[in-house]
Protein backbone atom coordinates (compact mmCIF):
# COMPACT_ATOMS: atom_id res chain seq x y z
CA UNK A 1 0.00 0.00 0.00
CA UNK A 2 1.13 3.52 -0.62
CA UNK A 3 1.80 5.77 2.26
CA UNK A 4 1.35 8.96 0.38
CA UNK A 5 -1.36 10.78 -1.42
CA UNK A 6 -0.77 11.25 -5.08
CA UNK A 7 -1.15 14.78 -6.30
CA UNK A 8 -4.09 14.29 -8.58
CA UNK A 9 -5.14 17.85 -9.11
CA UNK A 10 -5.01 19.03 -12.67
CA UNK A 11 -3.68 22.51 -12.54
CA UNK A 12 -4.58 25.20 -14.93
CA UNK A 13 -1.79 25.26 -17.45
CA UNK A 14 0.80 27.74 -16.43
CA UNK A 15 1.35 30.69 -18.64
CA UNK A 16 4.88 31.83 -18.07
CA UNK A 17 5.76 31.69 -21.70
CA UNK A 18 2.64 33.49 -22.80
CA UNK A 19 4.08 36.97 -22.62
CA UNK A 20 7.05 35.90 -24.66
CA UNK A 21 4.73 34.27 -27.18
CA UNK A 22 2.71 37.44 -27.61
CA UNK A 23 5.79 39.41 -28.49
CA UNK A 24 6.85 36.67 -30.83
CA UNK A 25 8.10 38.12 -34.09
CA UNK A 26 8.39 36.42 -37.42
CA UNK A 27 11.95 37.39 -38.31
CA UNK A 28 14.45 34.56 -38.79
CA UNK A 29 16.53 35.86 -35.92
CA UNK A 30 13.60 35.59 -33.56
CA UNK A 31 12.82 32.17 -34.85
CA UNK A 32 16.37 31.05 -34.12
CA UNK A 33 16.27 32.42 -30.60
CA UNK A 34 12.91 30.76 -30.09
CA UNK A 35 14.37 27.44 -31.19
CA UNK A 36 17.18 27.94 -28.71
CA UNK A 37 14.68 28.77 -26.00
CA UNK A 38 12.75 25.59 -26.77
CA UNK A 39 15.92 23.53 -26.69
CA UNK A 40 16.78 24.87 -23.24
CA UNK A 41 13.25 24.05 -22.12
CA UNK A 42 13.68 20.44 -23.20
CA UNK A 43 16.94 20.31 -21.25
CA UNK A 44 14.94 20.91 -18.06
CA UNK A 45 12.98 17.77 -18.76
CA UNK A 46 15.67 15.63 -20.39
CA UNK A 47 17.31 14.11 -17.26
CA UNK A 48 13.94 13.01 -15.88
CA UNK A 49 12.90 11.53 -19.22
CA UNK A 50 16.19 9.70 -19.48
CA UNK A 51 15.84 8.39 -15.94
CA UNK A 52 12.32 7.15 -16.50
CA UNK A 53 13.39 5.52 -19.75
CA UNK A 54 16.29 3.74 -18.02
CA UNK A 55 14.56 2.68 -14.81
CA UNK A 56 10.97 2.11 -15.95
CA UNK A 57 10.82 1.89 -19.74
CA UNK A 58 13.87 -0.27 -20.30
CA UNK A 59 13.09 -2.78 -17.50
CA UNK A 60 9.55 -3.16 -18.75
CA UNK A 61 10.64 -3.87 -22.32
CA UNK A 62 13.45 -6.12 -21.16
CA UNK A 63 11.03 -8.01 -18.94
CA UNK A 64 8.78 -8.73 -21.90
CA UNK A 65 11.76 -9.96 -23.92
CA UNK A 66 13.02 -12.07 -21.02
CA UNK A 67 9.65 -13.75 -20.63
CA UNK A 68 10.13 -15.27 -24.10
CA UNK A 69 13.68 -16.40 -23.38
CA UNK A 70 15.28 -19.23 -21.53
CA UNK A 71 16.96 -16.73 -19.22
CA UNK A 72 18.88 -18.65 -16.57
CA UNK A 73 21.78 -18.03 -14.27
CA UNK A 74 24.27 -18.68 -17.09
CA UNK A 75 22.60 -15.98 -19.19
CA UNK A 76 23.78 -13.53 -16.54
CA UNK A 77 27.39 -14.27 -17.42
CA UNK A 78 27.19 -14.95 -21.12
CA UNK A 79 24.72 -12.15 -21.68
CA UNK A 80 22.72 -14.23 -24.13
CA UNK A 81 19.57 -16.22 -23.64
CA UNK A 82 18.02 -18.51 -26.26
CA UNK A 83 14.56 -17.69 -27.56
CA UNK A 84 12.05 -19.99 -25.93
CA UNK A 85 8.70 -18.97 -27.31
CA UNK A 86 5.88 -19.53 -24.87
CA UNK A 87 7.75 -22.07 -22.75
CA UNK A 88 7.88 -19.80 -19.69
CA UNK A 89 4.20 -18.97 -19.80
CA UNK A 90 3.31 -22.61 -20.38
CA UNK A 91 5.44 -23.63 -17.39
CA UNK A 92 3.68 -21.11 -15.17
CA UNK A 93 0.18 -22.07 -16.24
CA UNK A 94 0.79 -25.81 -16.02
CA UNK A 95 2.57 -25.85 -12.65
CA UNK A 96 -0.70 -26.73 -10.94
CA UNK A 97 -0.22 -23.88 -8.47
CA UNK A 98 -1.05 -20.97 -10.75
CA UNK A 99 -4.75 -21.12 -9.85
CA UNK A 100 -3.87 -21.04 -6.17
CA UNK A 101 -1.68 -17.95 -6.62
CA UNK A 102 -4.45 -16.19 -8.52
CA UNK A 103 -7.00 -17.00 -5.83
CA UNK A 104 -4.58 -15.94 -3.07
CA UNK A 105 -3.84 -12.68 -4.87
CA UNK A 106 -7.54 -12.00 -5.39
CA UNK A 107 -8.43 -12.68 -1.74
CA UNK A 108 -5.46 -10.72 -0.41
CA UNK A 109 -6.12 -7.73 -2.64
CA UNK A 110 -9.90 -7.55 -2.54
CA UNK A 111 -10.21 -8.26 1.19
CA UNK A 112 -7.53 -5.66 1.91
CA UNK A 113 -9.25 -3.09 -0.29
CA UNK A 114 -12.71 -3.69 1.11
CA UNK A 115 -11.77 -3.67 4.79
CA UNK A 116 -9.28 -0.84 4.69
CA UNK A 117 -11.68 1.27 2.64
CA UNK A 118 -14.55 0.61 5.04
CA UNK A 119 -12.41 1.32 8.10
CA UNK A 120 -10.78 4.33 6.43
CA UNK A 121 -14.16 5.80 5.52
CA UNK A 122 -15.55 5.16 9.01
CA UNK A 123 -12.54 6.87 10.57
CA UNK A 124 -12.70 9.76 8.10
CA UNK A 125 -16.38 10.31 8.89
CA UNK A 126 -15.71 10.03 12.60
CA UNK A 127 -12.84 12.50 12.54
CA UNK A 128 -14.88 14.94 10.47
CA UNK A 129 -16.93 15.57 13.61
CA UNK A 130 -15.82 18.25 15.98
CA UNK A 131 -14.52 17.04 19.32
CA UNK A 132 -11.59 17.92 21.56
CA UNK A 133 -8.18 16.70 20.31
CA UNK A 134 -9.60 15.43 16.99
CA UNK A 135 -6.76 17.05 15.02
CA UNK A 136 -3.80 15.79 17.06
CA UNK A 137 -5.24 12.27 17.35
CA UNK A 138 -5.83 12.14 13.60
CA UNK A 139 -2.24 13.23 13.01
CA UNK A 140 -0.93 10.57 15.42
CA UNK A 141 -2.77 7.88 13.45
CA UNK A 142 -0.21 8.50 10.70
CA UNK A 143 2.69 7.58 12.98
CA UNK A 144 3.05 4.06 11.45
CA UNK A 145 4.14 5.77 8.19
CA UNK A 146 7.46 6.57 9.83
CA UNK A 147 8.18 2.91 10.45
CA UNK A 148 9.80 1.22 7.44
CA UNK A 149 7.48 -1.47 6.11
CA UNK A 150 9.97 -4.24 6.84
CA UNK A 151 10.20 -3.12 10.47
CA UNK A 152 6.46 -3.06 11.06
CA UNK A 153 6.03 -6.37 9.25
CA UNK A 154 8.68 -7.81 11.56
CA UNK A 155 6.81 -6.62 14.63
CA UNK A 156 3.63 -8.19 13.25
CA UNK A 157 5.38 -11.46 12.58
CA UNK A 158 6.34 -11.65 16.21
CA UNK A 159 2.94 -10.45 17.41
CA UNK A 160 1.23 -13.18 15.37
CA UNK A 161 3.39 -16.00 16.68
CA UNK A 162 1.31 -18.90 17.98
CA UNK A 163 3.02 -19.41 21.33
CA UNK A 164 4.90 -16.19 21.89
CA UNK A 165 2.68 -13.72 20.06
CA UNK A 166 0.88 -10.97 21.87
CA UNK A 167 -2.19 -11.24 19.62
CA UNK A 168 -2.93 -14.71 20.94
CA UNK A 169 -2.20 -13.52 24.47
CA UNK A 170 -4.84 -10.81 24.06
CA UNK A 171 -7.31 -13.22 22.49
CA UNK A 172 -6.77 -15.60 25.36
CA UNK A 173 -7.27 -12.84 27.92
CA UNK A 174 -10.70 -12.04 26.48
CA UNK A 175 -11.52 -15.74 25.99
CA UNK A 176 -11.63 -15.65 22.22
CA UNK A 177 -9.96 -18.07 19.86
CA UNK A 178 -9.15 -21.76 20.30
CA UNK A 179 -7.16 -23.23 23.15
CA UNK A 180 -3.45 -23.14 22.41
CA UNK A 181 -3.88 -20.02 20.31
CA UNK A 182 -4.52 -19.37 16.65
CA UNK A 183 -1.70 -20.77 14.49
CA UNK A 184 -1.59 -17.53 12.46
CA UNK A 185 1.64 -18.22 10.63
CA UNK A 186 1.93 -22.00 10.71
CA UNK A 187 -1.46 -23.16 9.46
CA UNK A 188 -2.49 -23.11 5.84
CA UNK A 189 -5.90 -21.84 6.86
CA UNK A 190 -4.79 -18.73 8.71
CA UNK A 191 -1.62 -17.55 6.96
CA UNK A 192 -3.39 -15.67 4.17
CA UNK A 193 -5.67 -14.02 6.73
CA UNK A 194 -2.60 -13.04 8.76
CA UNK A 195 -0.83 -11.24 5.89
CA UNK A 196 -4.11 -9.63 4.85
CA UNK A 197 -4.62 -8.27 8.37
CA UNK A 198 -1.13 -6.77 8.36
CA UNK A 199 -1.71 -5.20 4.96
CA UNK A 200 -5.02 -3.74 6.12
CA UNK A 201 -3.29 -2.22 9.13
CA UNK A 202 -0.79 -0.58 6.76
CA UNK A 203 -3.49 0.69 4.43
CA UNK A 204 -6.06 2.15 6.84
CA UNK A 205 -4.24 5.45 7.52
CA UNK A 206 -3.77 6.04 3.78
CA UNK A 207 -7.47 5.49 3.10
CA UNK A 208 -8.45 7.67 6.02
CA UNK A 209 -6.25 10.60 4.96
CA UNK A 210 -7.45 10.69 1.36
CA UNK A 211 -11.11 10.11 2.22
CA UNK A 212 -10.92 12.73 4.98
CA UNK A 213 -9.60 15.34 2.58
CA UNK A 214 -12.32 14.28 0.14
CA UNK A 215 -14.99 14.80 2.79
CA UNK A 216 -13.63 18.25 3.51
CA UNK A 217 -14.16 19.18 -0.12
CA UNK A 218 -17.91 18.56 0.04
CA UNK A 219 -19.62 21.95 0.49
CA UNK A 220 -21.25 22.37 3.89
CA UNK A 221 -24.35 24.07 2.48
CA UNK A 222 -25.41 20.83 0.75
CA UNK A 223 -25.68 19.21 4.18
CA UNK A 224 -27.37 22.27 5.61
CA UNK A 225 -30.00 22.18 2.88
CA UNK A 226 -30.54 18.48 3.58
CA UNK A 227 -30.82 19.13 7.31
CA UNK A 228 -33.46 21.79 6.66
CA UNK A 229 -35.38 19.27 4.59
CA UNK A 230 -35.19 16.86 7.52
CA UNK A 231 -33.00 14.25 5.86
CA UNK A 232 -31.59 11.67 8.25
CA UNK A 233 -27.89 10.87 8.64
CA UNK A 234 -27.99 7.54 6.76
CA UNK A 235 -29.83 9.09 3.84
CA UNK A 236 -27.33 11.96 3.81
CA UNK A 237 -24.49 9.43 3.65
CA UNK A 238 -26.14 7.51 0.83
CA UNK A 239 -27.36 10.38 -1.34
CA UNK A 240 -24.95 13.24 -0.59
CA UNK A 241 -21.63 12.01 0.79
CA UNK A 242 -21.32 8.88 -1.32
CA UNK A 243 -21.96 10.40 -4.78
CA UNK A 244 -19.96 13.54 -4.07
CA UNK A 245 -17.08 11.46 -2.77
CA UNK A 246 -16.95 9.32 -5.91
CA UNK A 247 -13.88 10.90 -7.56
CA UNK A 248 -11.90 10.43 -4.34
CA UNK A 249 -13.23 6.90 -3.92
CA UNK A 250 -12.00 6.10 -7.42
CA UNK A 251 -8.51 7.37 -6.63
CA UNK A 252 -8.34 5.44 -3.36
CA UNK A 253 -9.58 2.16 -4.82
CA UNK A 254 -7.61 2.20 -8.07
CA UNK A 255 -4.37 3.27 -6.40
CA UNK A 256 -5.10 0.85 -3.57
CA UNK A 257 -5.48 -2.03 -5.98
CA UNK A 258 -2.37 -1.16 -7.94
CA UNK A 259 -0.29 -0.93 -4.78
CA UNK A 260 -1.78 -3.97 -3.04
CA UNK A 261 -1.50 -6.39 -5.92
CA UNK A 262 2.27 -5.88 -6.03
CA UNK A 263 2.95 -6.17 -2.28
CA UNK A 264 5.97 -8.36 -1.61
CA UNK A 265 7.74 -7.10 1.51
CA UNK A 266 4.92 -7.74 3.98
CA UNK A 267 4.31 -11.29 2.78
CA UNK A 268 8.01 -12.18 2.60
CA UNK A 269 8.60 -11.00 6.15
CA UNK A 270 5.43 -12.27 7.83
CA UNK A 271 4.98 -15.72 6.24
CA UNK A 272 7.45 -15.98 3.37
CA UNK A 273 4.52 -17.08 1.22
CA UNK A 274 4.02 -20.24 3.20
CA UNK A 275 3.16 -22.58 4.70
CA UNK A 276 2.79 -24.73 1.59
CA UNK A 277 2.11 -21.69 -0.64
CA UNK A 278 -0.90 -20.78 1.52
CA UNK A 279 -0.07 -17.07 1.35
CA UNK A 280 1.88 -17.01 -1.92
CA UNK A 281 0.65 -14.33 -4.33
CA UNK A 282 1.58 -13.68 -7.96
CA UNK A 283 4.04 -10.95 -6.91
CA UNK A 284 5.78 -13.11 -4.31
CA UNK A 285 5.89 -16.04 -6.75
CA UNK A 286 7.49 -13.76 -9.34
CA UNK A 287 10.20 -12.92 -6.80
CA UNK A 288 10.71 -16.55 -5.81
CA UNK A 289 10.93 -17.73 -9.42
CA UNK A 290 13.61 -15.18 -10.29
CA UNK A 291 15.62 -14.83 -7.13
CA UNK A 292 15.18 -18.17 -5.37
CA UNK A 293 15.10 -20.62 -8.25
CA UNK A 294 16.88 -18.33 -10.76
CA UNK A 295 14.32 -18.95 -13.48
CA UNK A 296 14.42 -15.34 -14.58
CA UNK A 297 12.38 -16.00 -17.69
CA UNK A 298 9.48 -17.43 -15.69
CA UNK A 299 9.80 -14.66 -13.11
CA UNK A 300 9.55 -12.15 -15.93
CA UNK A 301 6.47 -13.86 -17.34
CA UNK A 302 4.82 -13.80 -13.91
CA UNK A 303 5.68 -10.10 -13.57
CA UNK A 304 4.05 -9.37 -16.92
CA UNK A 305 0.91 -11.17 -15.82
CA UNK A 306 0.91 -8.96 -12.73
CA UNK A 307 1.08 -5.81 -14.87
CA UNK A 308 -1.78 -7.08 -17.02
CA UNK A 309 -3.92 -7.71 -13.93
CA UNK A 310 -3.30 -4.13 -12.69
CA UNK A 311 -4.06 -2.66 -16.08
CA UNK A 312 -7.21 -4.71 -16.46
CA UNK A 313 -8.53 -3.70 -13.04
CA UNK A 314 -7.85 -0.01 -13.66
CA UNK A 315 -9.60 -0.10 -17.05
CA UNK A 316 -12.59 -2.13 -15.88
CA UNK A 317 -13.04 -0.03 -12.77
CA UNK A 318 -12.77 3.27 -14.59
CA UNK A 319 -15.20 2.13 -17.28
CA UNK A 320 -17.65 0.76 -14.70
CA UNK A 321 -17.34 3.91 -12.65
CA UNK A 322 -17.87 6.22 -15.59
CA UNK A 323 -21.10 4.50 -16.52
CA UNK A 324 -22.26 4.90 -12.92
CA UNK A 325 -21.28 8.48 -12.34
CA UNK A 326 -23.16 11.22 -14.08
CA UNK A 327 -20.27 13.57 -13.62
CA UNK A 328 -16.96 12.29 -14.87
CA UNK A 329 -14.23 11.81 -12.29
CA UNK A 330 -10.87 13.35 -13.08
CA UNK A 331 -8.54 10.40 -12.84
Amino acid at each position, binding site marked *: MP*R*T*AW*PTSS*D*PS*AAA*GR*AADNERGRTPRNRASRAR*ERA*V*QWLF*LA*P*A*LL*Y*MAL*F*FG*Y*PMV*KNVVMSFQN*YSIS*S*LYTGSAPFAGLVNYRAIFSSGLFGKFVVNTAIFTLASLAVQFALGLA*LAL*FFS*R*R*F*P*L*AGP*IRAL*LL*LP*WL*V*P*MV*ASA*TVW*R*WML*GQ*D*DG*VVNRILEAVHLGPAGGVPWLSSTGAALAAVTIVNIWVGVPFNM*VILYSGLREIPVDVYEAAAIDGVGPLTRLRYITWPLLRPVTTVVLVLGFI*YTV*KVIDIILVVTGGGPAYASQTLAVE*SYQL*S*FKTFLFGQG*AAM*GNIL*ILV*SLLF*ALVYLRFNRSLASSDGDL
Partner: protein
Amino acid sequence: MTAPLATTARRPRRGVLATLFALLILAVLLFPVYWMANASLQSNATSFSTEWFPLHPSLTGYRQALSQQGGHLVTSLVIAVGATAISTLIATPAAFALARFKLPGRGWVIFVALATQMIPGIVIANALYGTYNSVHLINSVPGLILADASLGIPFSMLLMRSFMAGIPKEILEAARIDGAGQIRAFLQVAVPVARNGIITAALFSFLFAWSDFLFALTLTTTNAVTPITLGIYQYLGAQTEQWSPVMATAVIACVPSALLLVAAQRFIAAGVTGGAVK
Protein backbone atom coordinates in the same frame (compact mmCIF):
# COMPACT_ATOMS: atom_id res chain seq x y z
CA MET B 1 -39.00 23.52 26.84
CA THR B 2 -36.33 21.25 28.21
CA ALA B 3 -34.81 20.29 24.90
CA PRO B 4 -32.34 23.20 24.51
CA LEU B 5 -31.21 22.75 28.09
CA ALA B 6 -30.69 19.05 27.57
CA THR B 7 -28.60 19.51 24.43
CA THR B 8 -26.36 22.15 25.98
CA ALA B 9 -25.81 19.88 28.93
CA ARG B 10 -25.14 16.89 26.75
CA ARG B 11 -22.89 18.45 24.15
CA PRO B 12 -19.63 18.61 26.13
CA ARG B 13 -20.16 15.10 27.43
CA ARG B 14 -20.68 13.77 23.92
CA GLY B 15 -17.51 15.55 22.85
CA VAL B 16 -15.55 13.89 25.62
CA LEU B 17 -17.01 10.51 24.71
CA ALA B 18 -15.90 11.01 21.11
CA THR B 19 -12.41 11.91 22.31
CA LEU B 20 -12.26 8.79 24.45
CA PHE B 21 -13.40 6.68 21.52
CA ALA B 22 -10.78 8.31 19.28
CA LEU B 23 -8.10 7.55 21.87
CA LEU B 24 -9.23 3.93 21.91
CA ILE B 25 -8.92 3.73 18.12
CA LEU B 26 -5.49 5.33 18.39
CA ALA B 27 -4.41 2.79 21.00
CA VAL B 28 -5.53 -0.14 18.85
CA LEU B 29 -3.95 1.15 15.63
CA LEU B 30 -0.70 2.22 17.26
CA PHE B 31 -0.36 -0.93 19.35
CA PRO B 32 2.22 -2.55 17.04
CA VAL B 33 4.36 0.58 17.24
CA TYR B 34 4.01 0.57 21.02
CA TRP B 35 4.83 -3.10 21.22
CA MET B 36 7.97 -2.53 19.17
CA ALA B 37 9.16 0.27 21.47
CA ASN B 38 8.12 -1.66 24.58
CA ALA B 39 9.98 -4.84 23.64
CA SER B 40 13.06 -2.92 22.54
CA LEU B 41 13.49 -1.78 26.15
CA GLN B 42 13.22 -5.23 27.70
CA SER B 43 16.47 -7.10 27.54
CA ASN B 44 14.71 -10.40 28.15
CA ALA B 45 12.02 -9.86 25.54
CA THR B 46 12.07 -13.46 24.53
CA SER B 47 9.09 -15.56 23.76
CA PHE B 48 6.90 -15.44 26.84
CA SER B 49 8.44 -13.00 29.22
CA THR B 50 7.61 -9.72 27.51
CA GLU B 51 5.90 -7.46 30.02
CA TRP B 52 3.07 -5.18 29.03
CA PHE B 53 5.02 -2.14 30.18
CA PRO B 54 8.80 -1.58 30.26
CA LEU B 55 8.90 -1.23 34.03
CA HIS B 56 12.57 -2.23 34.16
CA PRO B 57 13.92 -0.58 31.04
CA SER B 58 17.25 -1.76 29.78
CA LEU B 59 19.33 -0.57 26.87
CA THR B 60 20.93 -3.96 26.24
CA GLY B 61 18.82 -4.43 23.13
CA TYR B 62 19.98 -1.10 21.73
CA ARG B 63 23.61 -1.83 22.52
CA GLN B 64 23.33 -5.14 20.70
CA ALA B 65 21.45 -3.57 17.82
CA LEU B 66 24.02 -0.82 17.33
CA SER B 67 26.95 -3.21 17.45
CA GLN B 68 25.31 -5.59 14.96
CA GLN B 69 23.43 -3.16 12.73
CA GLY B 70 25.27 0.14 13.18
CA GLY B 71 27.13 -0.30 9.91
CA HIS B 72 23.91 -1.08 8.07
CA LEU B 73 22.42 2.15 9.38
CA VAL B 74 25.32 4.11 7.90
CA THR B 75 24.88 2.27 4.59
CA SER B 76 21.18 3.10 4.55
CA LEU B 77 21.89 6.72 5.38
CA VAL B 78 24.40 7.08 2.55
CA ILE B 79 22.06 5.42 0.07
CA ALA B 80 18.99 7.41 1.12
CA VAL B 81 20.82 10.75 1.07
CA GLY B 82 22.33 9.97 -2.33
CA ALA B 83 19.00 8.86 -3.78
CA THR B 84 17.26 11.94 -2.38
CA ALA B 85 19.89 14.24 -3.89
CA ILE B 86 19.61 12.65 -7.34
CA SER B 87 15.84 12.50 -7.24
CA THR B 88 15.48 16.14 -6.22
CA LEU B 89 18.09 17.42 -8.69
CA ILE B 90 16.39 15.64 -11.57
CA ALA B 91 12.75 16.11 -10.62
CA THR B 92 12.83 19.82 -9.73
CA PRO B 93 13.71 21.22 -13.19
CA ALA B 94 11.41 18.63 -14.78
CA ALA B 95 8.53 19.75 -12.57
CA PHE B 96 9.24 23.37 -13.53
CA ALA B 97 9.24 22.46 -17.22
CA LEU B 98 5.96 20.55 -16.90
CA ALA B 99 4.29 23.44 -15.09
CA ARG B 100 5.70 26.38 -16.99
CA PHE B 101 6.75 25.48 -20.52
CA LYS B 102 4.26 24.75 -23.25
CA LEU B 103 6.21 21.76 -24.50
CA PRO B 104 4.43 19.47 -26.92
CA GLY B 105 3.65 16.12 -25.33
CA ARG B 106 3.97 17.25 -21.74
CA GLY B 107 0.59 15.68 -21.04
CA TRP B 108 2.14 12.39 -22.05
CA VAL B 109 5.06 12.92 -19.71
CA ILE B 110 2.64 13.41 -16.83
CA PHE B 111 0.72 10.30 -17.87
CA VAL B 112 3.92 8.26 -18.03
CA ALA B 113 5.00 9.49 -14.60
CA LEU B 114 1.65 8.33 -13.21
CA ALA B 115 1.82 5.05 -15.10
CA THR B 116 5.22 4.18 -13.61
CA GLN B 117 3.40 3.60 -10.33
CA MET B 118 1.65 0.67 -11.88
CA ILE B 119 4.85 -1.21 -12.63
CA PRO B 120 5.56 -3.70 -9.84
CA GLY B 121 8.97 -3.27 -8.27
CA ILE B 122 9.72 -6.93 -8.86
CA VAL B 123 9.44 -6.40 -12.64
CA ILE B 124 12.03 -3.64 -12.49
CA ALA B 125 14.27 -5.62 -10.16
CA ASN B 126 14.02 -8.71 -12.37
CA ALA B 127 15.21 -6.82 -15.44
CA LEU B 128 17.75 -4.64 -13.62
CA TYR B 129 19.45 -7.64 -12.03
CA GLY B 130 20.95 -8.89 -15.28
CA THR B 131 21.91 -5.40 -16.40
CA TYR B 132 23.41 -4.50 -13.04
CA ASN B 133 25.39 -7.72 -13.18
CA SER B 134 27.01 -6.82 -16.49
CA VAL B 135 27.76 -3.19 -15.62
CA HIS B 136 29.06 -4.12 -12.14
CA LEU B 137 26.47 -2.25 -10.13
CA ILE B 138 25.43 -5.37 -8.18
CA ASN B 139 26.46 -5.20 -4.51
CA SER B 140 27.34 -1.54 -4.76
CA VAL B 141 26.17 1.59 -3.01
CA PRO B 142 25.94 3.59 -6.27
CA GLY B 143 23.79 0.84 -7.76
CA LEU B 144 21.28 1.05 -4.93
CA ILE B 145 21.37 4.87 -4.97
CA LEU B 146 20.47 4.89 -8.67
CA ALA B 147 17.71 2.32 -8.23
CA ASP B 148 16.24 4.00 -5.14
CA ALA B 149 16.24 7.42 -6.80
CA SER B 150 13.81 6.00 -9.36
CA LEU B 151 11.30 5.51 -6.51
CA GLY B 152 11.20 9.24 -5.84
CA ILE B 153 11.51 10.88 -9.25
CA PRO B 154 8.00 10.42 -10.74
CA PHE B 155 6.31 11.24 -7.43
CA SER B 156 8.47 14.31 -6.82
CA MET B 157 7.89 15.55 -10.35
CA LEU B 158 4.11 15.41 -10.00
CA LEU B 159 4.13 16.85 -6.49
CA MET B 160 6.41 19.78 -7.30
CA ARG B 161 4.63 20.47 -10.56
CA SER B 162 1.63 21.82 -8.68
CA PHE B 163 3.88 24.07 -6.62
CA MET B 164 5.65 25.38 -9.70
CA ALA B 165 2.28 26.06 -11.29
CA GLY B 166 1.33 28.12 -8.27
CA ILE B 167 4.18 30.60 -8.65
CA PRO B 168 2.71 33.96 -9.69
CA LYS B 169 3.66 34.44 -13.31
CA GLU B 170 4.40 38.13 -12.73
CA ILE B 171 7.57 37.43 -10.77
CA LEU B 172 8.86 35.02 -13.39
CA GLU B 173 8.12 37.53 -16.14
CA ALA B 174 9.77 40.29 -14.14
CA ALA B 175 12.91 38.19 -13.89
CA ARG B 176 12.90 37.58 -17.65
CA ILE B 177 12.41 41.29 -18.40
CA ASP B 178 15.33 42.05 -16.12
CA GLY B 179 17.39 39.94 -18.47
CA ALA B 180 17.49 36.62 -16.66
CA GLY B 181 17.62 33.57 -18.92
CA GLN B 182 15.29 30.64 -18.37
CA ILE B 183 17.83 28.83 -16.25
CA ARG B 184 18.46 31.82 -14.01
CA ALA B 185 14.76 32.53 -13.67
CA PHE B 186 14.35 28.92 -12.55
CA LEU B 187 17.26 28.87 -10.11
CA GLN B 188 16.87 32.32 -8.59
CA VAL B 189 13.10 32.79 -8.67
CA ALA B 190 11.24 29.51 -9.00
CA VAL B 191 13.37 27.37 -6.68
CA PRO B 192 13.25 29.77 -3.69
CA VAL B 193 9.52 30.41 -4.15
CA ALA B 194 8.69 26.69 -4.46
CA ARG B 195 10.94 25.82 -1.51
CA ASN B 196 8.18 24.18 0.53
CA GLY B 197 7.26 21.89 -2.31
CA ILE B 198 10.86 20.94 -2.96
CA ILE B 199 11.47 20.13 0.70
CA THR B 200 8.30 18.06 0.88
CA ALA B 201 9.25 16.13 -2.26
CA ALA B 202 12.78 15.57 -0.95
CA LEU B 203 11.41 14.23 2.31
CA PHE B 204 9.24 11.72 0.48
CA SER B 205 12.18 10.68 -1.71
CA PHE B 206 14.17 10.08 1.46
CA LEU B 207 11.37 8.01 3.01
CA PHE B 208 11.02 5.90 -0.15
CA ALA B 209 14.75 5.22 -0.37
CA TRP B 210 15.19 4.69 3.37
CA SER B 211 12.44 2.10 3.55
CA ASP B 212 13.34 0.38 0.28
CA PHE B 213 13.49 -3.35 0.73
CA LEU B 214 12.97 -4.94 -2.67
CA PHE B 215 15.97 -3.37 -4.44
CA ALA B 216 18.15 -4.04 -1.39
CA LEU B 217 17.02 -7.66 -1.43
CA THR B 218 17.38 -8.30 -5.15
CA LEU B 219 20.31 -6.13 -6.21
CA THR B 220 22.71 -7.49 -3.58
CA THR B 221 24.03 -11.02 -3.49
CA THR B 222 26.62 -10.78 -0.72
CA ASN B 223 26.82 -8.98 2.59
CA ALA B 224 29.09 -6.30 1.13
CA VAL B 225 26.28 -3.73 1.01
CA THR B 226 23.44 -4.25 3.49
CA PRO B 227 20.90 -1.49 4.13
CA ILE B 228 19.09 -1.57 7.47
CA THR B 229 15.86 -3.00 5.99
CA LEU B 230 17.81 -5.98 4.73
CA GLY B 231 19.59 -6.18 8.09
CA ILE B 232 16.26 -6.55 9.87
CA TYR B 233 15.15 -9.19 7.37
CA GLN B 234 18.34 -11.17 7.94
CA TYR B 235 17.73 -11.03 11.69
CA LEU B 236 14.56 -13.02 11.08
CA GLY B 237 16.48 -15.84 9.47
CA ALA B 238 19.13 -15.94 12.15
CA GLN B 239 17.39 -15.54 15.50
CA THR B 240 13.77 -15.40 16.42
CA GLU B 241 14.15 -16.08 20.12
CA GLN B 242 15.74 -12.81 21.19
CA TRP B 243 13.39 -10.05 20.11
CA SER B 244 14.80 -7.11 22.00
CA PRO B 245 17.69 -6.31 19.62
CA VAL B 246 15.40 -6.86 16.60
CA MET B 247 12.86 -4.43 18.01
CA ALA B 248 15.59 -1.99 18.99
CA THR B 249 16.84 -2.06 15.40
CA ALA B 250 13.30 -1.43 14.17
CA VAL B 251 13.00 1.57 16.50
CA ILE B 252 16.37 2.94 15.39
CA ALA B 253 15.27 2.53 11.77
CA CYS B 254 12.45 5.00 12.45
CA VAL B 255 14.70 7.69 13.92
CA PRO B 256 16.05 9.39 10.76
CA SER B 257 12.57 9.74 9.25
CA ALA B 258 11.17 11.05 12.52
CA LEU B 259 13.98 13.59 12.93
CA LEU B 260 13.60 14.78 9.34
CA LEU B 261 9.87 15.10 9.72
CA VAL B 262 10.23 17.22 12.84
CA ALA B 263 12.91 19.37 11.23
CA ALA B 264 10.95 19.89 8.02
CA GLN B 265 7.56 20.09 9.68
CA ARG B 266 6.78 23.76 9.04
CA PHE B 267 7.74 23.46 5.37
CA ILE B 268 5.60 20.36 4.92
CA ALA B 269 2.57 21.79 6.69
CA ALA B 270 2.74 24.71 4.26
CA GLY B 271 3.52 22.29 1.46
CA VAL B 272 0.62 19.92 1.91
CA THR B 273 -1.94 22.70 2.13
CA GLY B 274 -0.20 24.51 -0.70
CA GLY B 275 -1.45 22.15 -3.37
CA ALA B 276 -0.17 18.64 -2.74
CA VAL B 277 -3.47 17.15 -1.73
CA LYS B 278 -6.42 18.70 -3.41
